[in-house]
């Protein structure tokens, strides 16, 4: 069952079409990743779901009910840019947000989340004394303090170190396990691949990808080879059948030209150097993103 549904939603800002005829269905209990380049329409879509912006046309349904002009209850929202009262103490901030959301067992929830996100020792400190990462975690707690049914996070991992990113990830998975539906936008393709049940990509205001990672990758087929050689990228010069090479230094990711044979590419490479690793795979989300978002960029091609 879809908990959020967008039907032919369009939003324009002056001459700019931020979102065009967008259809989207978010099943309950899933993690839905929103990806797309900067300015593609992710935040606008999220703000429309949150009823902060109103669509010019189209409808948005939450729990099957149209929600225009109604404030969303039990929806947690973490905006892209964090905003907390800097002079307030950590406890007071969470109490304020918890009271606004009519949170049950507020004090125990505050204690639980502060401990879980390793902020309990800061409970009496003012927000202005916290680091950027701590502030971000505090804002996250304020978002989920009432354990909402729907959690919408705009770039939740940006600016977090790997340890804090891991804490945030485990918190999200816990919330999902307890029944929450989570939507988050991200530029971290690796995180999106690993965490999301569904991935939605918006580009120039239009939906270009929507589905499970597997279904998206299936559309692109096994056209990717990950290769590690003793000579690096130099060994791949002149080999026929390679459409594009993404050089990561130690590893090269090859996109095959239509009809190209992996065996002939392997043979061509073996003639030039010693092969350490050769893996035929589907394209990564990162590669798919780049194929869509930067098709005009002429990367090094050996086709």
């Amino acid at each position, binding site marked *: 069952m879809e908990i959020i549904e967008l039907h032919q939603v369009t939003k324009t800002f002056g001459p700019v079409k931020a979102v065009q005829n967008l259809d989207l269905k978010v099943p309950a209990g899933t993690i839905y990743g929103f990806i797309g380049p900067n300015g593609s329409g992710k935040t606008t879509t999220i*703000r429309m779901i949150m009823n902060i912006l109103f669509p010019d046309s189209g409808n948005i349904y939450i729990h099957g009910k149209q929600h225009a002009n109604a404030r969303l209850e039990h929806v947690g929202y973490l905006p892209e840019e*964090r905003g907390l009262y800097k002079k307030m103490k950590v406890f007071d901030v969470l109490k304020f947000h918890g009271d606004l959301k*009519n949170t049950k067992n507020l004090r125990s929830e505050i204690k639980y989340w502060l401990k879980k996100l390793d902020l309990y020792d800061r409970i009496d400190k003012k927000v202005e004394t916290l680091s950027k990462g701590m502030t971000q975690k505090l804002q996250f707690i304020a978002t989920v303090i009432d354990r909402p049914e729907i959690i919408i996070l705009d770039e939740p991992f940006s600016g977090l170190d790997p340890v804090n990113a891991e804490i945030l990830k485990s918190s999200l998975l816990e919330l999902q396990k307890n029944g929450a539906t989570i939507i988050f936008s991200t530029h971290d393709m690796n995180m999106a691949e690993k965490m999301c049940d569904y991935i939605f990509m918006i580009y120039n205001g239009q939906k270009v990808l929507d589905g499970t990672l597997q279904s998206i990758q299936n559309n692109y087929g096994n056209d990717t080879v990950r290769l590690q050689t003793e000579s690096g990228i130099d060994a791949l010069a002149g080999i026929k059948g390679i459409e594009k090479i993404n050089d990561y230094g130690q590893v090269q990711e090859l996109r095959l030209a239509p009809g190209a044979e992996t065996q002939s590419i392997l043979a061509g490479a073996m003639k030039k150097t010693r092969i350490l690793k050769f893996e035929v795979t589907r394209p990564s989300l990162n590669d798919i993103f780049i194929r869509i978002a930067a098709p005009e960029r002429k990367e090094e091609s050996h086709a």
Partner: protein
Amino acid sequence: MRKTLIIALREYKAAVRTKSFIVSLVLMPVLMGGSTAVSVISQSKKDTSDKKFVVIDHSGLFSQVLHQHVKLRNDSAIFNPETREKIRPAYFVEFADPDTADPGKQKLGLSERIAAKDLYGFFEIGPSVLHPEKDPDNAYIRFYSENAFLDETRGWFANTVNNHLRQLRVAELNLTPESTKELFTWTNIEGLGLLKVDENTGSIRDAEKSNVVQSILIPYILVMLMFMMAIMGVTPLLTAVMEEKMERIAEVLLATVTPFQFMTGKILGSLSVSLTTAAIYILGGIITMQQLGAGDKIPYHLLPWFFIYLVFFLIMAGSIMAAFGSACNDNKDAQNVSFPAMLPMIMPLFVVWPVIQNPMSSFATWLSLFPPFTPMLMIVRMASPVSIPVWQPITGLIGIIVFTVLSVWAGARIFRTGILMQGQKPTLANLVKYVLKG
């Protein structure tokens, strides 16, 4: 409503728990009381150093009388009779024969003596001062000193000389001083209110004396208190809303509350701050006046009206401030719009004095019924000794309620758009567009 109150409570706590609130709460009466005290002290600490002046008397009439009056004054008026403390300067007068050949040189010489602190000033009495009608050009009395305009020596000299001139003129008419005793008696007019019927006894109640406290001080204090409450409680809303917009606090909150709840919560918070301050000051004022034995001057009947008008005045001003703040993007924007946003609060102050002088004039009446002016001007009129018709405060109240509702409605429409709009300047055209299109 619950969410609005939570926001209002946060605003209230954030304001009253700051040191600046406590400091301004204490500082304002201290400054006002301090300035009064300084004024009183400075009056008691007059310059009592002796003053010597020269008189160039072209008329030749005043040598004897001035010497007499100076002596009389120095003997009887410069010391406090009880404490013997010197409270006024002693005067010493010196007469100089007029230099008819070169009067400029004579006066320059005296001016140099004044600059050298040898003299305090010099007077020049014209030759025709006794009969000015015949020769008005020469019927002058001039005083030269470093601060001639604000000098009280001038007033003493003018009284002494003119009294003597009157006596000389009376003598010329062959009248005795006894027969002319009442000729120059000046009778002051006593200001009274209107007579009323006592509601309890049915008897006629004497009119009360008008006094400066009732006629000017109380109306003025109430208006200034209303203005200060707006300045303290409501004007900070402009920058506070702008900062919350720029720091994205607004966007976080708007996921949980509507823009209207957000705005009204902030206004209610500011209103509570102002009412707290006003209550503290009024209570303090009542206690102080009672301690000073002036408890009967306190207009208790006005206090409910004052607070009712204050509430609507602050809500009206607050919605304007919040709306303007939501349309700003930085401090420069906030500075640019702060004056137009404050106009509804400032404009009534420009006309307070004519309304205090004549509270029943049609100018005062109609202006006090015009909503942005109503709270301040109606209170001024009600606080004055005159009785204004009962329908006027009620009509004014209805007007200000309607105007406040309109302000909040328009403010909310601006706020709803402005609070999430980035990069748009708060021009009049944009604000009108936000109001019309929402």
